[in-house]
């Protein structure tokens, strides 16, 4: 642990170097970054909220409380509530399998996990139409048994799962790879069972990465447009998620209502970011605490 402390020392030396850059360079860089952020992030965000309230607070709340909007919010939350836990389970198992074991076809599995990042969401949606549509592979069978997948809630959930598939696994794999298997091996030689090893050794060490993955996964699940649009059928009050609802309102010239719904989504994103920074802050604090404790022990 002495290494960690001296590391810290070295880093602070670097920081002093950076600070000693000429005044103009320093502030020039900061200004460029700030102007860029303002232009591309802050101003559009403000515009969303301004437009949302452009017809007054009453219109804002009326358009959020409107039954179709409410149904869209509920469907969005439902899709996320199913997709995120499933992808957490999948992500942990996949990351575990890839980093703690050696097996044939590992690279293929890693590539497959990345697939949803690589294909366009529209293609993702069409895959399900080809599979479950009336004229698709499973369509006739589903029709006979009166099971509806696409143009209904299951299709939307499936499409959401597909596009959010890699987030947790992608977050965990590098982390677990870095950590290696030595702690788990130690636990096993000390007589812990597989589950015990997972709960008491692996999970605590990956919890920050996991939380971060869950947050990203959730943000995408709520915001997904393309794939969901293809399988939705756009039935108002039934198969419209919040992003689809926004598009509909915009196309109906209800700009204030559209931006009110958009501000809900933007709000969700802001909350997500706030939670993320809070977690990061906690994470850093935890680490420092651990480092201090270790230093004291020495």
């Amino acid at each position, binding site marked *: 642990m002495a290494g960690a402390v001296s590391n810290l020392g070295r880093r602070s030396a670097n920081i002093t170097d950076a600070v000693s850059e000429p005044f103009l360079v320093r502030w020039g860089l900061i200004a460029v970054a700030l102007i860029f952020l303002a232009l591309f992030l802050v101003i559009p965000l403000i515009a969303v909220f301004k437009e949302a309230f452009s017809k007054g607070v009453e219109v804002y709340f009326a358009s959020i409380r409107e039954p179709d909007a409410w149904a869209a919010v509920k469907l969005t939350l439902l899709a996320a509530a199913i997709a995120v836990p499933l992808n957490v389970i999948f992500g942990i198992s996949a990351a575990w399998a890839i980093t703690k074991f050696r097996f044939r076809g590992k690279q293929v599995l890693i590539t497959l996990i990345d697939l949803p990042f690589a294909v366009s969401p529209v293609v993702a949606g069409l895959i399900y*139409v080809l599979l*479950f*549509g*009336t*004229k*698709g592979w499973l*369509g006739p069978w589903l*029709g006979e048994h*009166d099971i*509806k997948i*696409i*143009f209904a809630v299951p299709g939307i959930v499936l499409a959401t799962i597909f596009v959010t598939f890699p987030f947790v696994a992608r977050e965990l794999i590098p982390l677990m790879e870095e950590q290696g298997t030595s702690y788990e091996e130690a636990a096993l030689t000390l007589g812990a069972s597989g589950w015990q090893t997972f709960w008491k050794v692996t999970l605590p060490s990956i919890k920050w990465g996991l939380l971060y993955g869950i947050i990203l996964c959730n943000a995408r699940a709520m915001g997904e447009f393309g794939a969901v649009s293809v399988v939705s*059928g*756009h*039935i*108002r*009050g*039934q198969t419209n998620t919040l992003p689809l609802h926004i598009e*509909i309102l*915009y*196309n*109906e*010239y209800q700009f204030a209502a559209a931006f009110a719904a958009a501000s809900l989504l933007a709000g969700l994103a802001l909350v997500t970011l706030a939670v993320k920074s809070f977690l990061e802050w906690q994470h850093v604090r935890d680490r420092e605490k651990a480092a201090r404790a270790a230093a004291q022990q020495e």
Partner: protein
Amino acid sequence: MLLKSVKKSLLVLTLGLTASAASWAQEVKLLNVSYDPTRELYAEFNKAFVAHWQKTANQKVTVSQSHGGSGKQARSVIDGLAADVVTLALAYDIDALYDEAKLIPENWQSRLPNNSSPYTSTIVFVVRKGNPKNIKDWDDLVKPGIQVITPNPKTSGGARWNYLAAWAYAKKAYGSDEKAREFVAKLYKNVPVLDSGARGSTTTFAQRQLGDVFLSWENEAFLIEKEFGVGKFEVIVPSLSILAEPPVTVVDKNVEKNGTRKVAEAYLNFLYSKEGQEIAGKNFYRPRDPEVAAKFSNIFPEVKLVTIDEEFGGWRKAQTEHFSDGGIFDQIYQPQ
């Protein structure tokens, strides 16, 4: 004692179940899959029909709507979107329900009066306030330097009507199909961007302020005035246009499965009733009923209208000739 309470709770349970089953049977659901510009029309019409059905059949009905580009919506129904009725932009898209999936009989269009089109519309021009480019008729659209906004005829029903209206005009004015082809090719050279649907084009023209003239459904043109403020735009009626008949039909396979044939048929018939026709007129669709149409005659100007059947030999023929892959549109249009 225990037995008694079990019996009692069972009784309550059965009563509850039958009660909920009864109320279930009382309520019926309809799904109307429609095209883009009918959003406002059906929002109003559905309310009227719910009241009408409650009164005449003493049954509660909820009508759900789905809107999008006409061709895309037909595709969704073919892929399994469980529409009880479809109300699309043109007959060809409904023909596809028969061709691709046999969801309806081949003679669907003769089942209701007026080619199954309870209301009609036509294609007009929308220009900016004061008509700065002095656009009066189709000939003005092919002049150099004029920007024409119209959606993509491959994906939008309205755009196909636009294209055919231009063709019909040029054929009448210049005498032959070759001349018409040249004319339409010139017109599409003046189109800076092809949106995929009518609503997208409306937004391009009215919201993003692109282009000098917008080829539009008549109802959409009036709606622009209503939504974006009277006086900002002007509607120009050309010397000749096309009679657009947006047809409707029950989707037989789906209503049989859902047990909704009766209410679905009543829904479409209600479109032909005086009340339905009034609602169509109020939403800027031309009513078929002569009496109701007379009421709205001050809104809808008289236009010389040609029909797709006499001018182009019906939708199937027009579709293969003009809009299929490698058809005339593909030959004359190069994206800029």
